């Protein structure tokens, strides 16, 4: 089961510090792309990791790229040494990224974020200009197409059609 709402609800309820980036951020702006993973720029400090583990504990988080080992089996110290965490949970894939190409670390990404209403919560999403910049910087054609969509959306918004 892949359920973005469950993941986002839990993270916000537990006051986890994150900014939505990647494909799902593009979806929120109106892109027609379909993505399976929730990409978040994440603050890799011990306090935030503790909040994260509390939020997703019963969703059985496992590492996706290191032999599906259980995240719970690892110490907070070890987890905070990671630059990124690619997890699989009962509610879907959760990718926690410490640094975004072209933008930098969490603090910088936070400066380039906007607050939106999502599932009844206030939620931080990377602003459209930075999202376009990061998508353009990626090698995959899929990302470049999303960048074109986002440019078009930006134009529509500038024309205040919506």
């Amino acid at each position: 089961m892949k359920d973005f709402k469950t993941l986002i609800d839990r993270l916000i309820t537990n006051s986890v510090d994150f900014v939505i980036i990647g494909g799902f951020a593009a979806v929120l702006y109106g892109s027609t792309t379909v993505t399976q993973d929730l990409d978040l720029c994440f603050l890799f400090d011990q306090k935030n990791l503790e909040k994260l583990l509390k939020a997703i504990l019963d969703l059985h988080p496992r590492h996706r790229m290191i032999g599906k080992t259980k995240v719970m089996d690892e110490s907070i110290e070890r987890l905070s040494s990671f630059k990124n965490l690619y997890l699989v949970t009962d509610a879907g894939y959760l990718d926690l990224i410490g640094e975004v190409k072209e933008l930098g670390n969490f603090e910088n990404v936070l400066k380039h974020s906007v607050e939106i209403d999502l599932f009844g919560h206030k939620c931080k999403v990377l602003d459209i200009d930075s999202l376009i910049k990061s998508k353009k910087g990626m090698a995959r054609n899929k990302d470049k197409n999303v960048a074109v969509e986002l440019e078009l959306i930006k134009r529509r918004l500038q024309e205040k059609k919506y």
Partner: protein
Amino acid sequence: MLKNLQKKLIAMSLVFVYMLNQMDIEKKAKKEGIDLSLIDANLELSYTNRAILHQKALNLVLELKKAGSTYYERLQNINRSAHNKQR
């Protein structure tokens, strides 16, 4: 007077460049096969409704993927048994 004319010319060329750029984006989008009407429909929705719509699309993609691999497996089994019969 010359300065005013210069200013007007600069402003007009800026508008022209902007318009060209905007035309380019739409052209580029069409060339990439992007359905502009779908984007317009999405923009009518709230952030939450865009997320809900995406979830429905994702569920459909995953169902189709599952059906595809079941079909492929069945096809492979049929081929395998036909091959065994021939031997």
